[in-house]
């Protein structure tokens, strides 16, 4: 079946612009996670959605970052007023939380470059 998909695969933007990154999780997966992978910080958790519960935003690095998940499926990560330190690969993962394990399936990521 189809895995986690993310778009765009690459995004180049100018400092100060807003960007939106999209994630389509595996159908039926109730949990959705965003992570960021950068040279300096490695792989770090950003935000987590589970069903209709309030999201866990504890990993968001600043209030310029926000995310939403519509209809329990597609998620969008928005970065406002981008800074050069936001350059990284943004990874989305989904899982069948509470059903048989915690395996998270990752998408290919969106590579964001802020000039």
């Amino acid at each position, binding site marked *: 079946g189809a895995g986690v998909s993310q778009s765009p695969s690459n995004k180049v933007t100018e400092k100060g612009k807003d960007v939106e990154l999209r994630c389509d999780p595996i159908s039926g997966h109730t949990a959705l*996670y965003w992570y960021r992978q950068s040279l300096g910080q*490695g792989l770090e*958790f950003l935000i987590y959605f589970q069903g209709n519960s309030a999201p866990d935003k504890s990993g968001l690095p600043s209030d310029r970052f926000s995310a939403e998940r519509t209809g329990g499926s597609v998620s969008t990560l928005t970065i406002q007023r981008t800074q050069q330190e936001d350059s990284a690969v943004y990874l989305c993962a989904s899982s069948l939380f509470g059903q048989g394990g915690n395996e*998270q399936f990752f*998408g290919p*990521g969106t590579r964001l470059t802020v000039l």
Partner: protein
Amino acid sequence: QQQVKQSPQSLIVQKGGISIINCAYENTAFDYFPWYQQFPGKGPALLIAIRPDVSEKKEGRFTISFNKSAKQFSLHIMDSQPGDSATYFCAASYSGGGNKLTFGTGTQLKVEL
């Protein structure tokens, strides 16, 4: 605070040899310990995972050894192949924390012919 420490940062192994990557954790609430494999330009893919109620898990050429008292776990790749050349990440999570993963810093493995 780095909750999962991984070593070595890079590793070169001859084809057919054993690759060993080590991780140590601090948070005793962690109850799930996966290893991910990542190729350039791809997202991480789950390789093998273990829970703290067992000390070892084997799947094909991949084995996780887990030492709860020492708060350490390791990945062993037997009969390493050039196709195993990738970056490997250990991770940990706990069900009470939404299963969000805390990753190690990664090990770049190169298997030479």
